[in-house]
């Protein structure tokens, strides 16, 4: 009897441990930037040492990757023009039958959709939301893109702001659903797919143009700042072979991005008292060469084609 009770107790303890991990649903770790901790002021605490110890837990670490909406937006802002021929054709969608290909192409189609909508391409927007829904449905992401979402999009097809809001809502639905189900690695793969598509669109638009003083090239260089976040997130998903496969591609890109050195100047902070908007004043420079740029563009092309063809 006692042994039985002990057995049940063990099950409950194991369940409790499992729940504590499942509920948090995010990474934990120690403070990573040891260098910054010297300069960074710690949070104040009026608590005594014992109480502080009681509440001391491992600090949780999150990484936010660029979303397809954000990627398309910064490209347009950099002077990108619209070229439908660089999008992933919707006819390709019938070939995406594995979870990995559907997740990657959900990200890819969502970036294409965002890009098209920013240029008021109404019919393309409608076509691409349908194909993004097909990918989300294939991944069993319930209600990420519902029929009512599509109807709302159709009803507001000439209102760019509402369309972007609908696209960002579908992304939020997908990522929150996957997080709820403990499938964060799938959410990461979707974002990596969208990010690679953004790089592909950007490098395609640059083509043979000079890279010096080119705003789109500057946006490409900016992506170096997010590569390490992707590597960290994908490395966490050790039990997901799909994530490990995508990790290899991101590491290939990281090798090239690591050849670019970005020098960041010191930030000074200035707040407009009327608008209450703060400006972080600083400058940055990089040492991108033509050789490294074309190496990067070629690798992006190779990886993107491996995802879409």
């Amino acid at each position, binding site marked *: 009897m006692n042994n039985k009770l002990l057995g049940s107790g063990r099950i409950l303890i194991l369940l409790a441990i499992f729940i504590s991990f499942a509920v948090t649903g995010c990474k934990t770790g120690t403070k990573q930037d040891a260098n910054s901790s010297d300069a960074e002021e710690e949070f104040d605490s009026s608590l005594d040492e014992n109480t502080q110890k009681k509440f001391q837990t491992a600090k949780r670490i999150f990484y936010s990757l660029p979303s397809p909406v954000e990627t398309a937006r910064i490209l347009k802002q950099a002077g990108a023009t619209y070229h439908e021929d660089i999008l992933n054709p919707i006819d390709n969608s019938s070939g995406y039958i594995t979870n990995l290909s559907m997740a990657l192409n959900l990200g890819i189609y969502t970036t294409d959709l965002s890009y098209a909508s920013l240029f008021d391409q109404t019919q393309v927007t409608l076509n691409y939301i349908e194909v993004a829904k097909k990918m989300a449905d294939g991944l069993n992401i319930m209600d990420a893109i519902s029929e009512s979402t599509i109807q709302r999009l159709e009803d507001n097809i000439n209102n760019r702001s509402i369309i972007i809001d609908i696209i960002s809502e579908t992304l939020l639905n997908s990522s929150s659903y996957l997080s709820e189900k403990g499938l964060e690695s799938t959410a990461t793969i979707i974002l990596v797919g969208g990010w690679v598509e953004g790089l592909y669109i950007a490098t395609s638009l640059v083509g043979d143009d000079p890279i010096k003083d080119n705003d789109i090239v500057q946006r490409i260089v900016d992506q170096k700042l997010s590569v390490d*976040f992707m590597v960290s997130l994908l490395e966490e998903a050790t039990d997901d072979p799909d994530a490990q496969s995508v990790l290899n591609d991101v590491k290939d890109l990281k090798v090239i991005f690591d050849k670019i050195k970005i020098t960041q100047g010191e930030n000074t902070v200035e707040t407009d008292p009327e608008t209450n908007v703060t400006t972080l004043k600083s400058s940055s420079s990089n040492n991108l060469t033509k050789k490294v740029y074309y190496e990067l563009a070629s690798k992006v092309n190779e990886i993107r084609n491996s995802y879409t063809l």
Partner: protein
Amino acid sequence: MMRKGILLIFLVAFITGIPTSVNAQCKQFAKKTCKVGLNPYQHDGNYHAALLIEGEEAELYKTFYSDTEYRIGVCGAGNLNAIEFKIVDSNGKVLYNNKYQDYDWKWDFRLESSQQLKIVIKVPVSEDTMENPEEGCVAIMFGFQDE
């Protein structure tokens, strides 16, 4: 014996169902409360929310792009005290700390150069709940608009 087995199955089903239910509440909180507050900024579509206990700290790393105006929103559930947060650059310089702004839940800013920033958040400990610290959903959301 069979009754105990059924009871155990129900218990397991109930307990393992808790995370989904709690995460669903967190999702609704992020969508209905925090995202709405980003207006007129456009939400970027990303979801960052988790259950945190009073006294707990978290960090979020993100790349922010030049020539874009951002709103960072850090929202805590009603059972938690106002969330403390600060923004730190890659040199460790604290660029903003909401404790000097009456614990405002949001911060609007723009950058002259693209860079990684770190958002450090802490759920303050309430003296009333020191023995049984409260746990609640905390969401971090980002909105942007063209300058």
